[in-house]
């Protein structure tokens, strides 16, 4: 029985949109009505884009970043100009893209596909740590940079990876943390200052 008196197809669309993160029932209804009002071409373009991304995009066999289905490796893993001895470990592909935009790192990446998160049901087995260990055990890697988020879950994930990699003769490093560039001490919070003091370095 339709919940709102609409036709079933509109109800189904509302329900599907309402399952997207950050979209509630009202927003789902608003988006559904927008799709009803827009041209057929515009609506089908969105539908095709969703279908294509789900059928064509896969995880890279090497680093778990996103790649096209016909390519087992992503663009970064295929690029011979990248530093093949350093891996930067990130939680998700979005973090990788942020780091790429900064152009501060020219090595390889490894995407964990999440982070330790107890109440969301994500434990060590849900992450792609075994694949990372396999890559390191191949012997060409000299440094692994842990770029998980600077919060407790990110730190815990980094700790877990560092323990797993302790058996290999490589450098395992963590991104620096503390004061933000361009900020002022006056507006830095206690934790930022504490981290900055711990991570201070000679000039």
């Amino acid at each position: 029985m339709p919940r709102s008196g609409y036709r079933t197809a509109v109800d189904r669309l509302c329900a599907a949109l309402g399952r997207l993160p950050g979209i509630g029932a009202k927003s789902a209804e608003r988006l559904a009505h927008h799709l009803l009002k827009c041209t057929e071409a515009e609506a089908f373009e969105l539908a095709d884009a969703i279908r294509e991304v789900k059928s064509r995009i896969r995880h890279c066999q090497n680093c778990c970043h996103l790649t096209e289905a016909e390519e087992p490796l992503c663009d970064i893993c295929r690029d011979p100009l990248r530093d093949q001895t350093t891996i930067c470990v990130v939680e998700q592909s979005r973090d990788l893209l942020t780091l790429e935009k900064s152009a501060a790192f020219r090595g390889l990446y490894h995407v964990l596909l999440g982070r330790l998160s107890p109440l969301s049901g994500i434990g060590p087995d849900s992450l792609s740590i075994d694949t990372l260990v396999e890559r390191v055990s191949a012997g060409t890697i000299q440094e692994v940079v842990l770029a998980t988020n600077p919060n407790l879950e990110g730190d815990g994930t980094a700790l877990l990876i560092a323990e797993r990699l302790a058996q290999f003769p490589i450098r395992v490093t963590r991104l620096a943390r503390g004061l933000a560039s361009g900020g002022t001490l006056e507006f830095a919070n206690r934790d930022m200052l504490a981290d900055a003091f711990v991570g201070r370095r000679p000039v």
Partner: protein
Amino acid sequence: MPSARTLAIVIRSVEVFESSSIVTVFTRELGKAAALAKGARRLKSPFEGGLDLLSVSDIVLLPRASEALDLLTESAPVERFDTLRRDLAALYAGFHIAQLLSDLTDVHDPHPRLFDAARVTLRRLGEGDLRIRRVARFELFCLRELGLMPSLDTCSHCGRAVVNEGDRVGFAVALGGIVCHECRPGLAQVSLLPRESVAAMRALASPGNDWRNLEEQGRALGWARETIGHVLSHILGRRPRFRPLAGV
């Protein structure tokens, strides 16, 4: 409803929208609450980095009368437990504590003593030689505070004091504690525990320092931990996920 200022332990955080989070906090004065923290992930926000998981923050909460989420308007960090960032077993124990607070307590049902106990336990998880006992002690404190403590002195079936029962004492998880020699035969799912393990649970649940004298790897504590685990699994309807990882 007016805003309320209280200390809180962040037990869950989920990212929503562009820069906001829905955080579940266990507060000292208001109990558990789920609140929307608008813009919490921005570098410059009214939350000053005070919403990290398992940290203690001084928060201002705007409770909603309806079923809508509360609104978190301010937060300042008060205490961060750095041991959890250096010691994986301590971190898993911290996750376990967060899970107990989340799953065993009700929304807006305050338990200030449980808040204080959680804070003290989190602060001392770095003491590796006492960690297992501290977590077991917190589990029993949590059960007692919430009215779920298994009976360790009187029969959970007939209510009589249980004394001089011999080397083994009957324990029925479903009934909620030990059962006396007379009641035991007719009851299903009663396990027999060594007397020392019940004594170990009593020591862990008591306010004194006797629990410190229990052997960390001893048989009595091992049985006691296993029994507490069964009680928690029974109440939660599943095994606590991070308990084995924390070595408890």
